[in-house]
């Protein structure tokens, strides 16, 4: 049976495991109908021109994990950020691990989607925000239909989350080749603030496929700093659908570090629904082997006097392939918009490829929009300069690559995370650099 048919026909069985009197029941039923009609995206869809899921979808995925797996903290410690005092929401094969997690309901809610969707005390927030920010397509509809578990983060008005929140998804292989569909809701109300780090990690030699949806709401003057660490194994693929709705003078940043995974597709969408908003989209991609990353971004300027800043850097070796497709829409009403987009790429091998495609749709006449993309190689004259000072070729190359990605790394506000990312890069480049950039 094809995966699509399997997913459609398994829906009833899935429904029987969740509470059908719940208000999300109708949402699920609508979503599965949508998925039945539109199915998985294909290359015929312009937005999926350079990324094919065909090879992944051939797998016979397990949809519901049967075995509950326990992991010891010491065995997975390295996937958390060193010495960082944080709240943790941890899933193992899609199932919440209370043992590894550290949640709270003190002033803020850092807990599980399954609780939020079923318990009465969260109903008010769920009714207002859940499934309101996401835009429906085949992948998101599929997620909505099967949405059951994920991270639920609620920061009420005038509150600063006292610690960063780490959301980590482990897959263990004990449940076979698993399709995971985490569903996250993050609501940050007016004048509130939160920092979140998200990571997906396959611990096994089984294939893993994740189709994740994250809805983020930023109220007036809210401040959200979100980091995605994508350093998964060569057998793991991820479609990440993230939707951010922003209101007056809020600042939301999403930093995506794409260092691994077989196929990674990031659909990152920002909707500006107020004035004085700043949206920041940063990305560093470093790939080798036969891996593929596709950054598909959208910023919709729907109101005047807002800014958006996109800065994506990519380094590609071997047969790695990268895509950057960045769309900026400036509505007619959105005068005085400042929208910047830049995508720079370095190819280290002549078999690596990058497709970079800026798309600007501007309907207002008093705006400042710029976009630029470059695809090139490491600067030979800079390499010689460094070598003439005694820095060996390998180290000189690494230093240049660090330098290339540096302004994005600079934007990381958690020092421990910055260090971790520096280490990850050094590890990938096979060098040790004697300082943190």
């Amino acid at each position, binding site marked *: 049976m094809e995966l699509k048919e399997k997913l459609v026909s398994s829906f009833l069985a899935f429904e029987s495991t969740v509470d059908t009197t719940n208000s999300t029941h109708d949402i699920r039923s609508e979503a599965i109908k949508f998925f039945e009609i539109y199915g998985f995206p294909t290359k015929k869809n312009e937005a999926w021109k350079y990324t094919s899921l065909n090879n992944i979808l051939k797998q016979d995925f397990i949809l519901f994990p049967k075995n509950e797996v326990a992991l010891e903290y010491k065995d997975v410690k390295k996937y958390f950020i060193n010495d960082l005092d944080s709240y943790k929401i941890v899933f193992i094969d899609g199932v919440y691990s209370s043992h590894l997690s550290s949640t709270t309901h003190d002033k803020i809610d850092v807990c599980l989607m399954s609780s939020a969707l079923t318990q009465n005390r969260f109903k008010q927030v769920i009714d207002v925000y859940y499934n309101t920010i996401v835009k429906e397509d085949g992948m998101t509809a599929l997620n909505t239909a099967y949405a059951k578990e994920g991270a639920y983060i609620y920061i009420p008005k005038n509150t600063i989350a006292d610690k960063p929140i780490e959301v980590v998804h482990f897959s263990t292989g004990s449940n076979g080749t698993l399709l995971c569909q985490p569903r996250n809701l993050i609501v940050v109300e007016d004048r509130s603030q939160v920092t979140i780090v998200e990571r997906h990690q396959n611990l096994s030699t089984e294939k893993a496929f994740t189709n994740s949806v994250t809805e983020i709401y930023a109220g007036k003057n809210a401040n959200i700093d979100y980091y995605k660490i994508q350093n998964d194994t060569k057998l793991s693929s991820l479609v990440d659908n993230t939707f951010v709705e922003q209101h007056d003078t809020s600042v939301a940043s999403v930093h995506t570090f794409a260092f691994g995974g077989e196929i990674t597709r990031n659909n990152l969408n920002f909707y500006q629904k107020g004035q004085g908003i700043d949206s920041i989209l940063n990305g560093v991609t470093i790939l080798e082997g036969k891996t593929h990353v596709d950054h598909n971004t959208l910023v919709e300027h729907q109101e005047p006097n807002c800014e958006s800043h996109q800065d994506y850097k990519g380094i590609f070796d071997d047969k790695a392939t990268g895509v950057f497709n960045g769309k900026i829409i400036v509505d007619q009403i959105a005068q005085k918009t400042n929208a910047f987009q830049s995508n720079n790429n370095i190819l280290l091998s002549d078999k690596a490829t990058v497709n970079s495609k800026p798309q600007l749709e501007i309907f207002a006449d008093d705006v400042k929009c710029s976009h630029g993309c470059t695809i090139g190689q490491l600067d030979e004259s800079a390499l010689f300069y*460094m070598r003439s000072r*005694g820095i060996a070729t390998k180290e000189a190359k690494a230093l240049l690559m660090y330098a290339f990605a540096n302004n994005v790394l600079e934007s990381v506000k958690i020092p421990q995370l910055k260090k971790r990312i520096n280490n990850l890069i050094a590890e990938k480049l096979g060098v040790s650099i004697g300082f943190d*950039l």
Partner: protein
Amino acid sequence: MLEIKDLHASIEDKAILKGLNLNVKAGEVHAIMGPNGAGKSTLASVVAGKEEYEVTSGKILLDGNDIEELSAEERAHQGVFLSFQYPVEIPGVSVTNFMKTAINETRKARGQEEMPARDMLKKIKEKSELLEIDSKFLSRSLNEGFSGGEKKRNEIFQMAMLEPKVAILDETDSGLDIDALRIVANGVNKLKSKDNAVIVITHYQRLLDYIVPDFVHVLHNGKIVKSGDKNLALELEEKGYDWIKEELKA
């Protein structure tokens, strides 16, 4: 210290150096002058180990050892330094971090321990004062947005940090105002010792008022065609190169 014997070098099959001889002993300052296109910068690049140039025959000896097979970084480890005519901008790497990496890479290659952070800071402070470099400047990205004078001062600062045996200054005076020229020359003079040597490549006598050469050579058409003492530079300043070309024809 540095001995160049009958050096022939070409780039993309175009011969640039055509039998160049030069013998630089420890403690000496040599100036190399010559018209545009004579091969001055090629000489500097070839000695520093730039791969685009092919050495077709001849020898480059450092302390009697042939360095032709060594890579640019290995030559640096052996004590060769080139002050670039056009220093390259490297955004994202600060002057300090660049210097730390260069020094520790060199020490590593020589089988030495990394320099302790305290010693490194002390050295950076001392040498930056020598070149009258502000400490704020050291945390800026290497050469990015530097003025012409700042770039050249930074080159000599790097020379001071790396303490090479043989330093080649390729048109270090170009783009310098008179104050910067004085600072740079003063720095070079303080770094001079009986154990190292300096080769100054320049178009103008001006720099040689400050860095006084023991020998002046005229490079023309890939060869050294005339050598003399510092008075030769004065003569060139006054008369230009044509008289030498005439002399050669005769």
